[in-house]
Every structure is written in structure tokens, then in C-alpha cells.
């Protein structure tokens, strides 16, 4: 007998085939659905808008409004503007099809909105634009593509204009609009000479002596070409946030109009179109002096890497060098330096002062000639389509008065301005003051902007009176070196003649309607002694030199001393420009290599190398703290400082909500801080990369801080200087308010802005973010903007504090500037941001102040910012510093940019590390010793542990400042906790069955301003979501509906929940046909229709995961009544014998619970619970066949399937099943054989 091979037996094959087919069926029925991705004061803040979209639209309108008032008309030859009888225009300039809407880096916009382009703006204003020319520019193959930010301009050469382009000018020749675009990226300054640049010389730049901020050869050729075509209206747009050399354009009579549009933002071109067509009367005024030749400005000789001053135009000339080798100091970080040798004579302070002195020495004619040669547009210049004139000036102090009698007060000018033109418009009124310069004494500029205001919109003939006020003390100069020899150093008003003048720009008196109206007012400070102001005007704190430490006898400068000037011994010399006749405005000289050479024994060399060392502070160090300092008192209560030994054992009495609105000097803060562990303090100060960590035990959520100064997230405002060019505090407030709004709506709590450094040089890489060359204009715009941002509960971090006027070597460059210049020019905007704007945050710069890192400059952060100005917020570092151990080596220098350490940083008052300090470096903060009640640091080299109360108290204070600022912010969420409204909710309802379900958040919220709305997806037909969170209705279509419900509390406090609404078919009765009296019934409520939703959570793994859910059902009669004689069991059986004929309607509730398989772990439980109504008819038993109402056909939906995997499974199933069938058939055939 033949033995049967069991393996190949037919039965086995058939069984195998059956299994395969069963597997196929199962695979085919499995569906996958990827889980949808989820993601001040009284502490209450509110939005003015009901929806995010409404807010965005308002923000865009704000940008357009700011652009309308900031775009500056510079030339309007023969009143060519506004354009008349112009319909078809040709827009020249390849950059016109891709202009610079904003800056880059932090000044960029990550917006997903679409900008209004230059072409859009012109078309919206009614112009037809030359699309042939546009298409040419858009095609890089035709017009070139070599533009790079900050480097190559990329203008198409005239030779590339083809025949089609040339023909187009025959039609589009009503006007030529020429777009000249420039932008610089963060981290870089504008190129001063292309001889320095390493890039190949592009076709658009030929002469190596050009710089980035002047016309390129291709642009010049383009303009000549346009002129040759015979366009009789040529308008040039300067699309550059940096000032631009426009002297050739001004001198060219063929150029009719010139407008500075800066980087106008995504909606700025809306305004431009309307300015060109006259709908809007331009009212912008320049924020810098536009001088003729940027290479002749005093800052040209000390800027960037100074390569522009090298003989070859390439070699950097800004590094300390080893005297022995002549090479830059090897292995040493941060050996670069820059000297602000021009001192206070920045921008108009230089040009107006030189002019004034030249008038005095050489006569007005010579001075005018010099000025015309050197200045194209003075600071504050701007034209209008109308004319304005002063008709009246009233002063609070009579002209000729002695200001000494008013030294602690202010002077107020009420200036009435009339629109004497024929077009409605606004104008800017500028008030400058003049303080007497005494030869050889305190440096002073001839004129200084003291106040400004913008009129209302004035119809022709209409007037407005603006108020301009100047505090007398604010006119004082900072005599840091006792130049007037009166024995005092500080703010002083010298005796002599003072003058106030109402001007339309720094150089020009405001026009008057009548000769009798005076716009210049003379005053005096009598006597021979200067008026000394020892205290800050607002805080009353003592003001004294912080940066003039001198070298010790042993050649060192010590850690307590700060010097913002170069060390006098063994360092590069610094010759400050002076107005003194002995060296009257001698132009600064670039440092020579020899001057920058250091011997290794030089104290400065040692200072550079040792800059990162700090051990524990010595007792003589004025920053030193011991346990006696570890307490605070408010007079009645003394709180001894401590920290909780552990989070597990402590009792929390005060939470973050309890601290909302509590003043910073309230001793309650110390009680709060005592509850934190030292580890928590360290976490708060060390993890600041766009965040402040949460303190869950204290109910403090994590805060979100982020860029940028000209775009929060979506609305692109262009540049900070466009805002400043409005000279309108209403615009500053408008933008501030919208910055706050947008931050609220996206859940952001802190804003890395505004940027308030100074336009020291036109080449500054972040000039697009910064407001102006003038500190008062900058500080005023910043202060009003800040106040509005913070009104919305969003705290600012004004930046970069301080002296970040160039991008080159910004990380660590030693910035040398005298203290007078620091205070009067570069710190002034920050002072105003803090004292007028009440800024709650400041961001450090990355450079050094003198030779001390900005991150660790106690003099700047503690003595000036806090001590003098009264700042009570926190300072965040900028990107870059890395925590280093307290005792670094000076030997093998690490590559990493480590130029500050934790101890220096926090002890110096710099609170929050923007770079999250790595876990490995947190040990350098030391640990809390509960026995010693202080912090102990154990050195890595095995040295003895060091107790450091100085570090402990510094870290504690930093953490307190950070938490305080957040307690003044929208981090409070208005006390409304919506965080539990999250995740997913699944509802299953029956088709055609009315239902009521709620998705509302559980519990009461601390506000009545609540609504719910569908933010994504949609509801099925027949179903609605009420504003109270109830979903109800009758769904008529079976299906699975996914949508997101957003809870909106106080309009901006939003949270979302994903909701799945399953609409399933009604149940089906089986065995309920032909009911008749007397005929037994054995029926059942069907559950086959129940929607199966087998969902997998997490990524698909290779291989199939099989799982299933077994649903147990329970049935109950919900409403109505079964036919008499029948009953419903809990397991869904209907049994009995009808006893009465009739039509019966009843509703059955089916509740289901799941019993899952062992592999259920990846599944979400499905618990449908729904009602179905049935209507059945019972016949009388005489043969009438009653009809039975059945539910609808069972659904066949086997669940949604996402991606390719489930489809693959289905196909696999079919394939497997088919093969199984084939095997079975073959087995049968073989058997028969």
C-alpha cells in the first residue's frame, strides 16, 4: 500500500486552502485609519477680534497703513507725482518681480500668506503693467539669476532685452517705474567693496570699487536705456531697508520721481500703488541722513572687518595680532574689535555739526556748498503732494528765559500747522534743540532731535496743533571725563545759549505762513557753572560712570572694573573724533596692523585669554553675596531665603496663579521662590530656547518666546525703519497692538523684539530691523510699540543690548565706545524702551562692551539697566553663548564658541539662556546643600567643594525675574484652563435617529465668554454644533465624519479636540415578518450593521498585526412598547406570542461594550450606544400578511483605510485567497487523477 504523504494529502491541502481563504477574507476586511495628528495687571487680556482670520486681515491692513505713512517721497520733479494720464506702465528691474518684502534671519517672515506684489499693487491702483517685460524678468533663462542676498544685485543686462521686450515699450510707455532692491541677511553686513568679496565678479558688477548700496553697472545702463527710450515719466523706487546712494539719481533731470519704500511688508505695495495714483498723499520722512558718498562717512573707517580700508580692499583689519608673528592671535576666540571713533557724531550729528561750524568759520556759502556735496537728503527729510506751514507757535517758557530756573521741568511747544496746499495730507513736525559747545570741552552736536509729532490728516486749509515737549534734563550731555573741568562726571548742561527750532528735517526750518511766525526760540543757561544732574530723571537713582575703570598698578583691570574703551597700555589706540578746534573733525583712521599687535605679556592679551575665567567671587568683589544677603524685608516682614530640599517633601502654599499681578518688589515673591528647589531654579534660567520651562507643581505652564521684530508669524510688517519713517506714534501703537494680537491668537507669550540698535552705518546688516540713526526717534517708536504689545499680555525682549551695530564678528567682537556716546546714542533707545515703554524683557547682544561680554556685563545689566533705569524684568541672552565651567583652560582652546560661563552670566544679571544649556553642563550650577543652606559647587578637577551664595542668589533672582515677567503676561490664560479640552472623542449615532451629544469641556471655566466652533472638517448634513458645545440633530447619511471642535474662551484662549462622529445604520429586526396574533415569535435585534472600526495607533510595522474586538451588546426597551405578548431580553431576543393586532412603534437602546483580544493594545475602544426606532404591524391571525418595517440595509462600510497599506492588505488578501482556491482546485484534480 502506498503510504500517503501527509504533507501533501488532499485533505491537508484543502484545509490549507481554506485557511488561506479565511485569512484572505480577514485581511480584506481590516481597515486602517491613521490617527489624526493632534496638537498685568490682573492677568486678564483680551483680543479685539472674534476670529483668527479677522485678526490677520486687520494685521495686513495695519501693514498697508504703516506703509502708506512710511513710504517717503524724495523727488517729485515738476510734480510728476501723483501720476496723471498714466495707464500703461513698464516696471523695470529684475528685482521688481521678486522685491524684498522684509529682511532675513530674525527680521524675516515665515509667513504662509501671499504677498501683494509690486505688480499687484500697481494693478490694484488701476495701472496696466507690461506683462511682456514681467515675463522676461521672471524667466531666469532670459534675464539671468545671479541675485544673492546682500551680495549680488542680479540686474539683467540691457543686452539681454530681446525683440519682444523692446516692442512692448511701444505700448507700455506712459511711465517707467524702476525697482532698485537691496537686502542684507542677518549675520552679514552689506558689502563695502566687491574687491573684498570672494565670489566671482558677476556680470552685474564690473568696477571693483562699488559697494552694495549704490547703483550697479547694469542698473545704470538700464536707466540710461529707459531715458533713451523717451519715457517722459521715470519713477525710481528704492526697495532697500538700508540707506542708498542716490546722488546720481537726484542729479539726473530725467529721473522725475524718487520714492524710498524700504522693505514694505506683504501689504506695503497696496499703499505704493495708491501713492502713485494720488489716493494717498505720502507723508514718510527719512530715518537716516542719506549722504552722497558712503565711503566718506566717518564710520567707513571703523566698520565691519575694516577690509574696505585695507590697501588691497580685501584683508580684514580688525583683529588683535601676535606681535611676534604678525598673525591674528592664534587659538584665541574673539580677538576682533571695532572702535566707534566718531563718538557722538553719528549721522546728522556729524553732518549738521560740520555744516554749522563751517558756516561759522567759512561762511554760509561755503558751508552750503559742502553740505550739497556731501548730503543728498538730511535726516528727517520727506516730501508731500501738498505744502504745510507753521501758523503759530506757543511755548510754555517764554523765549529768552533762563532755563536754569526750569532745570527740573520741561518746555512745551504747541505748534499749529496748516495745510497750505491743495491736497489733503499729513506732515511731520520736528523739534531740535541746540546746546552750546565750548571749544575743547564736552562734545556736543549742533542740533539734536528733541521731540516730534505728526499732524492729523489735514484737508487743504485745515490746521492741527501738535504738542512737542522736551525735558530740560534730557538736553544734558554726559561728561564722562570731566571735559569741562568742573570736578563732576555725569549729565551736565553747560552755561550758554540754547535754541529750539521747529524743522521739517534736521537741516531745514519748517516753512511759515507768515514772516512774523517764529520757528526758532532762544534761551540761556545763566551763570558760569554747568547744571549737574546726579540722578536719573525718572527713577531718581544715582547716575555715575560705569565704564571708565583704569588700569591697576599691577597692570590688571580686575573683575570689578569695566572699561568700554581699549586698554591704554598694550592695545590698539583709539582716537576719538572731536569738535575741538585743535583737531576739528579729523576723520577717523582705520587701525593699522601694528597698532593692533600685542605682546603676550600685554595685559590685554592676558585679558582676552583669561576672559572666561571666574572662580568664586572674592569678598572684595562688589558682586559678592554671602548668607547675610540671603533674606529680604519689606519693613514689617522678613523672609529668610531658602530652597526646597526636594519636590516630593515640600508644601506649596503659593502657586503661579497666586502671583499674577503681584508687584515685583512685593515680598510675597520671596515666599514663592522659597518653595522652589534649586534644580527648578536652574531649569528656569538655563532652558530658554524660545521657551520658559513649565513648573507643573506650581501650575505654571511653559511659555513660548519667539521672533521676529517685523513678523510675529504671518503678518509681515516689512522693516522697523518703515515704521519709524511714519514718525507717527499712532502707527507704532497700531503695530504694537497687532503684534500683541497675533501673539495671543497663536499662543505666544514673549516677543523677541523690537530691535532698537542704531543705524550707525548704512552697511549695518540688521538695519532693516532697527528703526533709525537717531536714538530719540528709535526710542520713542519702540516705547509706544512696546506699551501696546504688553497691553495684550505679551512681554517684549527689546534687543540687542547693547552696541550691536554690525553683524561682522558680532559674536564676541570687542566694541569700544566712550561712555558719553554709549549713553547719549546707543543706550538711549533701550532706556526709553524700559522707562517709557515699561519693557519687561531685554535681549543681550553677542558682542562685548569694551572687553566684557554683553552676556556678563554687570555694569551694563545691573548698574545701569536696573540700578539707574529701574528695569524690573529679565534679560535673555542671544543665540550663542554656551555654558562653560567656572575654571576653563586657556590651553587647548575648544572650537566651540564659549565666551561666557554660567557664573559670569547670572551673577552679572543676565537671566535666561536662550540656548538650552545642555544636561551635561547643568552641573556647573552646583547643587543645593540643605544643611549649609546654600549652593555648593564641586570642581571637576577634584578640588574642594566651593560654597557659593553669590551664585545661588544670582540664579534665584534670575528665576524670579523670569517668573515675574511671565506672571504679568497672557501665560495666565486669564485664569481659564482649557488644557483638558484636547485629544479625541468618538460618538456613534444611528442614521435617522435624533441625538444630543456634548463635547463641551467638563467643569466650569472662569469666564462666560465661551464658544465652540468647527475649525476643521465638517459635520454631516442634519447635524449642528451649538456654541455651547452640544452636537445634535438627525444624521441622514451613514458614514464616518471627522472634524475638529475648537473651544474659544475670551476669544484668543483656544483649545481643540478631534471628534469622530460615526453615523451607523439602524438596527434590523430579524424574524419579525408576518407577525400575527397567536403566532409565536422568535426574533432578534440585529447587530451585524454595527460599524467596525479597527484602528491601529502608531506606525505600520512590517508584517500584519491582527487584532479584533468582540462587542457584547445589551438591549433594553427605551421608549414605546412592543406588541402585546412580546418581550425583549437583554441579549436582544424578542420572544412571545402576540395577543393583539395593531401597529406598534418602539425604540430599543443598544449598548455595546468591547472585549478585546490580546492584541488590542493598539486599539481605541469602540463603545457605541444608540437608539433605533422600529414600527411593526401585528396581523389579526386571519392570514393577512403584515408588513414589517425593517431597518435599512446593513452598512457595508468596513472602515476607512488610509495610505497604501490597507489597500495592500486587501490585495494581499485577494491574492492569498485566490491562490488558496487554486490549490484547492488542483488538489481536487489531482485526487481525481
Amino acid at each position, binding site marked *: 500500500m502506498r503510504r500517503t504523504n501527509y504533507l501533501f494529502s488532499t485533505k491537508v491541502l484543502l484545509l490549507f486552502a481554506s485557511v488561506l481563504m479565511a485569512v484572505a477574507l480577514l485581511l480584506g476586511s481590516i481597515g486602517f485609519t491613521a490617527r489624526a495628528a493632534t496638537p498685568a495687571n490682573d492677568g486678564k487680556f483680551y483680543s479685539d477680534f472674534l476670529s483668527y482670520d479677522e485678526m490677520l486681515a486687520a494685521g495686513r491692513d495695519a501693514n498697508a497703513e504703516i506703509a502708506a505713512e512710511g513710504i517717503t517721497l524724495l523727488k517729485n520733479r515738476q510734480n510728476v507725482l501723483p501720476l496723471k494720464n498714466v495707464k500703461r506702465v513698464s516696471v523695470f528691474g529684475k528685482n521688481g518681480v521678486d522685491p524684498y518684502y522684509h529682511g532675513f534671519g530674525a527680521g524675516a517672515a515665515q509667513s504662509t500668506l501671499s504677498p501683494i506684489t509690486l505688480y499687484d499693487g500697481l494693478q490694484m491702483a488701476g495701472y496696466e503693467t507690461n506683462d511682456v517685460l514681467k515675463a522676461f524678468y521672471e524667466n531666469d533663462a532670459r534675464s539671468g539669476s545671479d541675485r544673492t542676498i546682500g551680495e549680488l544685485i542680479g540686474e539683467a543686462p540691457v543686452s539681454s532685452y530681446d525683440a519682444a521686450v523692446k516692442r512692448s515699450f511701444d505700448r507700455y510707455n506712459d511711465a517707467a517705474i524702476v525697482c532698485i532692491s537691496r537686502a542684507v541677511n542677518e549675520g552679514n553686513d552689506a558689502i563695502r567693496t566687491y574687491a573684498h568679496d570672494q565670489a566671482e565678479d558677476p556680470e552685474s558688477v564690473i568696477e571693483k570699487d562699488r559697494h552694495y548700496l549704490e547703483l550697479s553697472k547694469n542698473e545704470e545702463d538700464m536707466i540710461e536705456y529707459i531715458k533713451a527710450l523717451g519715457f517722459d515719466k521715470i519713477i525710481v523706487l528704492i526697495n532697500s531697508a538700508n540707506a542708498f546712494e542716490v546722488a546720481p539719481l537726484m542729479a539726473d533731470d530725467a529721473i522725475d520721481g524718487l520714492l524710498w519704500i524700504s522693505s514694505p511688508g506683504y501689504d506695503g505695495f497696496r499703499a505704493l500703488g495708491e501713492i502713485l495714483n494720488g489716493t494717498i498723499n505720502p507723508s514718510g520722512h527719512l530715518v537716516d541722513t542719506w549722504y552722497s558718498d558712503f565711503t566718506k562717512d566717518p564710520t567707513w573707517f571703523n566698520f565691519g572687518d575694516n577690509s574696505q580700508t585695507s590697501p588691497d580692499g580685501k584683508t580684514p583689519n580688525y583683529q588683535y595680532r601676535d606681535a611676534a608673528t604678525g598673525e591674528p592671535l592664534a587659538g584665541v576666540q574673539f580677538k576682533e574689535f571695532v572702535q566707534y571713533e566718531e563718538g557722538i557724531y553719528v549721522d546728522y550729528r556729524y553732518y549738521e555739526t560740520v555744516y554749522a561750524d563751517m558756516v561759522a568759520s567759512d561762511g554760509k556759502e561755503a558751508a552750503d556748498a559742502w553740505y550739497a556735496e556731501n548730503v543728498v537728503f538730511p535726516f528727517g527729510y520727506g516730501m508731500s503732494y501738498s505744502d504745510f506751514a507753521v501758523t503759530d507757535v506757543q511755548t510754555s517758557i517764554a523765549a529768552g528765559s533762563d532755563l536754569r530756573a526750569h532745570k527740573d521741568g520741561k518746555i512745551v511747544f504747541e505748534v499749529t500747522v496748516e495745510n497750505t496746499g491743495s491736497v489733503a495730507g499729513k506732515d511731520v513736525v520736528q523739534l531740535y534743540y541746540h546746546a552750546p559747545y565750548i571749544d575743547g570741552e564736552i562734545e556736543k552736536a549742533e542740533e539734536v532731535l528733541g521731540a516730534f509729532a505728526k499732524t492729523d490728516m489735514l484737508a487743504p486749509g485745515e490746521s492741527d496743533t501738535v504738542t512737542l515737549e522736551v525735558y530740560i534734563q534730557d538736553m544734558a550731555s554726559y561728561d564722562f571725563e570731566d571735559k569741562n573741568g568742573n570736578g563732576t562726571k555725569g549729565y551736565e548742561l553747560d552755561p550758554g545759549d540754547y535754541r529750539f527750532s521747529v524743522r521739517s528735517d534736521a537741516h531745514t526750518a519748517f516753512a511759515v505762513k507768515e514772516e512774523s511766525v517764529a520757528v526758532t526760540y532762544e534761551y540761556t543757561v545763566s551763570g558760569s557753572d554747568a547744571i549737574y544732574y546726579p540722578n536719573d530723571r525718572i527713577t531718581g537713582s544715582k547716575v555715575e560712570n560705569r565704564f571708565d575703570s583704569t588700569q591697576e598698578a599691577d597692570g590688571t583691570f580686575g573683575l570689578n572694573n569695566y572699561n568700554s574703551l581699549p586698554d591704554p597700555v598694550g592695545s590698539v589706540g583709539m582716537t576719538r573724533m572731536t569738535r575741538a578746534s585743535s583737531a576739528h573733525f579729523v576723520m577717523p583712521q582705520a587701525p593699522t596692523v601694528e597698532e593692533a599687535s600685542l605682546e603676550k605679556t600685554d595685559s590685554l592679551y592676558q585679558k582676552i585669554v583669561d576672559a572666561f575665567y571666574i572662580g568664586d567671587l572674592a569678598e572684595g568683589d562688589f558682586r559678592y553675596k554671602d548668607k547675610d544677603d540671603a533674606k529680604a524685608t519689606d519693613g514689617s516682614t522678613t523672609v529668610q531665603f531658602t530652597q526646597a530640599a526636594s519636590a516630593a517633601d515640600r508644601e506649596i502654599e503659593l502657586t503661579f496663579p497666586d502671583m499674577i499681578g503681584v508687584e515685583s518688589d512685593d515680598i510675597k515673591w520671596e515666599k514663592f521662590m522659597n518653595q522652589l528647589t534649586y534644580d527648578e531654579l536652574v531649569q528656569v534660567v538655563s532652558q530658554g530656547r524660545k521657551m520658559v520651562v513649565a513648573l507643573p507643581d506650581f501650575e505654571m505652564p511653559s511659555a513660548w518666546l519667539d521672533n521676529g521684530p517685523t513678523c510675529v508669524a504671518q503678518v509681515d510688517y516689512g522693516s522697523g525703519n518703515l515704521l519709524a519713517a511714519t514718525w507717527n506714534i499712532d502707527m507704532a501703537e497700531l503695530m504694537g497692538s497687532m503684534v500683541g494680537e497675533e501673539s495671543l491668537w497663536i499662543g505666544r507669550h514673549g516677543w523677541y523684539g523690537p530691535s532698537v540698535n542704531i543705524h550707525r552705518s548704512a552697511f549695518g546688516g540688521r538695519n532693516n530691523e532697527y528703526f533709525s540713526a537717531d536714538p530719540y526717534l528709535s526710542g520713542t517708536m519702540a516705547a509706544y510699540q512696546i506699551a501696546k504689545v504688553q497691553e495684550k499680555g505679551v512681554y517684549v525682549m527689546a534687543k540687542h543690548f547693547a552696541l550691536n551695530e554690525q553683524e561682522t564678528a558680532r559674536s564676541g567682537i570687542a566694541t569700544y565706545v566712550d561712555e558719553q556716546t554709549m549713553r547719549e546714542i546707543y543706550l538711549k533707545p533701550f532706556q526709553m524702551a524700559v522707562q517709557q515703554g515699561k519693557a519687561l524683557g531685554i535681549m543681550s547682544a553677542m558682542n562685548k562692551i569694551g572687553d566684557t561680554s554683553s552676556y556678563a556685563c554687570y555694569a551694563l545689566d545691573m548698574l545701569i539697566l536696573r540700578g539707574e533705569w529701574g528695569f524690573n524684568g529679565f534679560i535673555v541672552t542671544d*543665540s550663542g553663548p554656551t555654558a562653560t565651567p567656572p575654571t576653563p583652560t586657556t590651553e587647548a582652546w575648544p572650537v566651540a564658541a564659549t565666551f561666557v560661563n554660567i557664573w559670569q552670566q547670572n551673577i552679572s544679571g543676565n537671566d535666561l539662556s536662550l540656548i538650552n544649556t545642555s544636561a551635561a553642563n547643568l552641573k556647573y550650577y552646583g547643587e543645593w546643600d540643605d544643611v549649609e543652606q546654600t549652593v555648593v559647587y564641586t570642581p571637576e578637577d577634584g578640588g574642594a567643594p566651593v560654597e557659593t551664595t553669590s551664585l545661588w542668589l544670582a540664579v534665584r533672582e534670575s528665576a524670579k525675574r523670569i517668573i515675574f515677567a511671565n506672571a504679568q503676561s497672557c501665560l495666565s490664560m486669564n485664569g481659564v484652563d482649557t488644557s483638558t479640552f484636547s485629544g479625541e472623542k468618538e460618538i456613534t449615532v444611528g442614521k435617522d435617529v435624533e441625538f444630543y451629544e456634548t463635547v463641551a469641556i467638563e467643569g466650569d471655566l472662569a469666564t462666560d465668554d465661551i464658544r465652540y466652533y468647527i475649525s476643521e472638517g465638517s459635520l454631516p448634513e442634519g447635524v449642528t454644533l451649538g456654541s455651547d458645545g452640544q452636537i445634535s440633530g438627525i444624521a441622514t447619511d451613514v458614514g464616518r465624519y471627522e472634524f475638529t471642535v475648537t473651544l474659544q474662551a475670551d476669544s484668543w484662549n483656544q483649545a481643540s479636540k478631534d471628534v469622530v462622529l460615526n453615523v451607523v445604520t439602524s438596527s434590523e429586526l430579524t424574524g419579525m415578518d408576518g407577525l400575527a396574533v397567536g403566532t409565536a415569535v422568535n426574533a432578534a435585534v440585529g447587530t451585524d450593521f454595527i460599524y467596525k472600526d479597527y484602528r491601529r495607533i502608531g506606525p505600520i510595522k512590517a508584517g500584519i498585526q491582527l487584532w479584533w474586538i468582540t462587542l457584547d451588546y445589551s438591549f433594553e426597551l427605551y421608549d414605546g412598547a412592543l406588541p402585546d405578548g412580546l418581550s425583549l431580553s437583554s441579549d436582544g431576543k424578542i420572544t412571545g406570542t402576540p395577543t393583539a393586532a395593531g401597529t406598534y412603534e418602539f425604540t430599543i437602546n443598544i449598548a455595546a461594550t468591547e472585549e478585546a483580544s490580546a492584541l488590542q493594545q493598539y486599539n481605541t475602544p469602540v463603545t457605541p450606544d444608540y437608539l433605533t426606532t422600529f414600527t411593526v404591524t401585528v396581523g389579526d391571525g386571519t392570514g393577512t400578511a403584515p408588513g414589517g418595517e425593517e431597518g435599512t440595509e446593513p452598512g457595508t462600510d468596513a472602515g476607512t483605510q488610509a495610505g497604501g497599506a490597507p489597500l495592500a492588505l486587501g490585495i494581499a488578501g485577494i491574492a492569498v485567497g485566490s491562490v488558496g482556491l487554486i490549490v484547492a482546485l488542483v488538489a481536487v484534480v489531482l485526487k481525481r487523477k
Partner: protein
Amino acid sequence: MKKKSLVLMLLLALVAAVSLFAFAGCGNGEEGDGEGTGNGGEGSTSVPEGMTEYLFEAEWSPDIEFLAGFDYSGTISGLDMIQKDYFEKGASNDYYVTGLYGEGLSLSYTIESDKAVDDAKLVLRLSAEYMDITLTSSIYTVAVNGTPVDYRNIKLTDVPVSDRANLLDFADFVLTETLSLKEGENVITLTTTNSNPMMGTMYATAPLVDCFKITTSAKLTWDPCMTNTGQ
């Protein structure tokens, strides 16, 4: 009989082949071709029998301490390039490496193998921040013992904008399933080999790197710099 058996064996083999296709095709469709969406979340590859999956945390490279990297606005250097996964984006060990946005920035890992193999699977776990990027094997070079791995493009898309996290969930990307390791020391390097700027001061295109995984029959060991994360 023999003929019958042969036919039946062929049929069974066909069934097996089809089944294998069905099973294999039910994995992450993105793994097989190197295309990723960046939204994979927690993931791990399948581990065939006889093989072991080894995970190597990116943050434990000995090089990080000496790197000078770049951030959106400024620089980020040394161990601070190791970021804690505050926003729960699925970084294993709760840390990942950022700041690799400069040409030449490189992470290396020295791994010992007890034998030579040529069928190891290499998976990189990546994310992206600030903007969508596409990695190619030429702009982000993954090399093993000096030999670059040629992998299909990795697309990291839908990076959330206007979101505080501003980065994608970490996801696994299979680079190769025929990785050669030699017996003894192997060096794997991940290097930014481009100067294609992203945004701000990010001067090159690079991902966020969480870890990489090698699935192999060899026994692998290494000496991770766990002190980089204070562990």
C-alpha cells in the same frame, strides 16, 4: 506521485511567495523606498529572526562638544546642540541634535562588530525644523568606513509654521538594507555636505538627528558619550 508532489510543492511555494509579498507590503510604505513624510512618530523596523536591532543615540557622539553649529538666528555650539525633546516629538532618550546647519559639521560614531556582514539595515531617525527640506545622499552624507551610503531622497515636509514646536515628529527612514560592516571597528559619520541655506543664519540644509539604528546578525558594541546628556 513525484509529478504530483512537484506540482503541489510549486503551488505551495507560490502561495508562500504571495503571502510573503502580502506581509512585506504591509509595512510602512515609506520605508521601502526611502521616502518619508516626517510624521511617522514612534517607530522601529521589523527585526528578522536571527538579527538584532541596535540603537545609537546621535547625542552620544564624541564630536558634539567641539562643534560650532548654527541656529536660526545666531550660533549654537558644543553640547548645547543637544536639545531636550520638550515638545514630545518622539526623540528617543528624549534628546536630539540640532544646529548642523553648516557645511562640514559632522557627527561620528565608532562601532565594534564581531563579524563582517553585508546585509545590515541602516535606519536614520530624523526630523526637520523651521522649513521643509529634502535630503539627498549628496547633501547630507552618511558614510560607513568612509564609503558614502547612497540612499533615496528623504523628504521632511509639512514642518509646522507658527507653531511653538516648529519641528516635525521624528520618523524612521531606511537608508539601506545592504549595509556592510567589517569585523572590528567601523566608523559611521553623518555630515552636512552642502551650503544651501535654510532660513536666517542656518547656512546649510540639515536635519535634526535623533538616532540611527542598525539591524544585523552581527554583535555590535560601542562606547557612547552618555555624559553628553548628563547620563
